[in-house]
C-alpha cells in the first residue's frame, strides 16, 4: 500500500486526475498545504472513489480556517497521524 501526498488545490490544479490514475485500490491519499482545499464539499468531484482512504492534515486545515468546512468523507489527521500513515505505507509518493 502506497501513501500519496498532494499539496495542490483542486480548484487551481489539474494534477488530481494523474494522482487518481496512479492510485491502487488500497492506496491512501493525504491532502496537505493548499491540497486541503480538496477537503471542501465542492472538491468531491475531483477526488471521487476514495471512501475511507482520503485524509487531510488538521494543522493545514486549521491555519486556513477550513476545519469546520470539511466534507464528511474526509478523515482529519494531525501531523502525528501523518507520520503514522507513512509508517504503515510501503512508500510515499509526493504530488505537487
Amino acid at each position, binding site marked *: 500500500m502506497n501513501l500519496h501526498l498532494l*499539496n495542490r488545490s483542486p480548484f487551481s490544479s489539474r494534477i488530481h486526475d494523474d494522482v487518481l490514475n496512479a492510485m491502487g485500490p488500497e492506496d491512501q491519499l493525504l491532502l496537505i498545504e493548499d491540497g486541503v482545499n480538496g477537503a471542501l464539499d465542492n472538491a468531491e468531484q475531483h477526488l471521487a472513489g476514495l471512501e475511507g482512504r482520503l485524509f487531510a492534515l488538521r*494543522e493545514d486545515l486549521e491555519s486556513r480556517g477550513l476545519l469546520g468546512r470539511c466534507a464528511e468523507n474526509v478523515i482529519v489527521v494531525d501531523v502525528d497521524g501523518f*507520520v503514522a500513515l507513512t509508517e504503515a505505507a510501503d512508500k*510515499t509518493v*509526493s504530488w505537487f
Partner: protein
Amino acid sequence: MRYALAVYGGPYSQQASHSALRFADALLARGHQLTTVFFYHDGVYNAANMMAPPQDEPHLRDRWLSLAENHATRLQVCVAAGLRRGMLDEREAARHGKQGHTLEAPFELTGLGQLVEATLDNDHLITFA
C-alpha cells in the same frame, strides 16, 4: 524507523520548508530517526547563511541547524542545483574565484547520488515540494 526528507521548495516562497520541519519534529517525537534532509531544486536556498527574516517570522535556516545539532541529521545540498543558484561553500567559492561564501556547515554540498542513497537506504523518504 529511519527517515529521510527531500525538500524542493524555496524558503519563504513555498510552504514546503515549514511542512518538512513540522514533519521532522513529529517523526522524532514518535521515536524515529531522521538521518538525512536532502535539498534540491529551490530547496537549496534553505541553506542560505545570509537569510535575515523579520524577527516575528520563523528563521528557517536556524530550524534546520537545530535539527542537525540535536538529532545528528545530515543536511545535504545538491551541488549542481546549488552552484547555479549561488549557494557556494568556501571551497567552491575559491574554485570559482568568488569572495566569501553562502553555505556552511552543518549544511554540506553533495552530489545527487546522496539523494539516491537517502531514498533507498532509509525506510521512508518523504518529499516536500
